[in-house]
């Protein structure tokens, strides 16, 4: 069993008992083993936006890595010890002075989970999935972000076998920061497009 969970007595979802029932039955019938279930839990716990921040920080510091990230993101991720999903593609799109990108999956909230971990609740919301393709600028304003005058907004709806992440622009005034300090500026939302990275003073 994956352990006693005292907080579950207070959960209001009837599905909590159902997934526990499914787990128990699958283990009893030998369809799955406990280590496999534990591996499944550890898999997601090991993944977070920090991975994305590392990819971005490295790309900001190293033009060769940046080129690799934009042309073969899976290989770039592997170079930093990460393991993207398979067989889906992993693609990184670049924000520039002319283009700001926004990622959505209208059909089901696909997200590069193998790199970034679980998507935020807002990304999975019906409101985001409905509106991001049709009114991306209004959506970004709700998050407090507005691209500068003249910048085009490009939305990517990951409908099929591709998972997207954004390579945001490096903030100005960061020339003296090392890779770790740069990574700390990269917010999860800036990897999806509803925001841009922090500035060093912020």
């Amino acid at each position, binding site marked *: 069993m*994956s352990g006693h969970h005292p907080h579950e007595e207070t959960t209001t979802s009837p599905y*909590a008992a159902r997934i526990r029932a*499914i787990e128990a*039955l699958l283990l009893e019938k030998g369809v*799955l083993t406990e280590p496999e*279930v534990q591996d499944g*839990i550890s898999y997601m716990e090991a993944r977070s936006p920090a991975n994305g921040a590392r990819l971005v920080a490295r790309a900001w510091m190293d033009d060769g890595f940046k080129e690799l990230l934009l042309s073969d993101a899976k290989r770039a991720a592997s170079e930093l010890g990460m393991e993207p999903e398979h067989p889906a593609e992993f693609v990184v799109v670049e924000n520039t002075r002319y283009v700001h990108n926004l990622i959505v999956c209208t059909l089901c909230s696909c997200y590069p989970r193998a790199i970034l971990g679980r998507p935020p609740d*807002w990304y999975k919301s019906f409101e985001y999935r409905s509106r991001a393709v049709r009114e991306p600028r209004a959506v970004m304003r709700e998050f407090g972000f507005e691209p500068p005058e003249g910048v085009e907004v490009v939305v990517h709806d990951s409908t099929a076998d591709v998972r997207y992440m954004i390579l945001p622009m490096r903030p100005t005034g960061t020339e003296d920061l090392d890779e770790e300090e740069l990574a700390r500026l990269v917010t999860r939302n800036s990897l999806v497009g509803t925001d841009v990275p922090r500035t060093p003073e912020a």
Partner: protein
Amino acid sequence: MSGVHDMGGSPGGPIDRDQHEVEDWERLADAINSALGARGLQTTDELRRAIESLENYRDLSYYERWTAATERLLVEKNILTREEIDERAAEIERRWSRP
């Protein structure tokens, strides 16, 4: 007529930016799915299709949809029956409600 899941371009209200704490049962839903996938017993496409087929899609949360869809697939593939899941879930809930 497209499914209720096909919502790109539909009208929508403000986006709730609150983040709920992931519950253990939700972690488990994730884990069961990746374990079944690793075993070759279920694919991402099957899961998506099963989620899309849920009649109460709009009333369920993300992981509730995952759980309901996983159940549907396991029953469809004759790995588990609905009755035994019902029975075990009821037993678990009884155990949880005991003081």
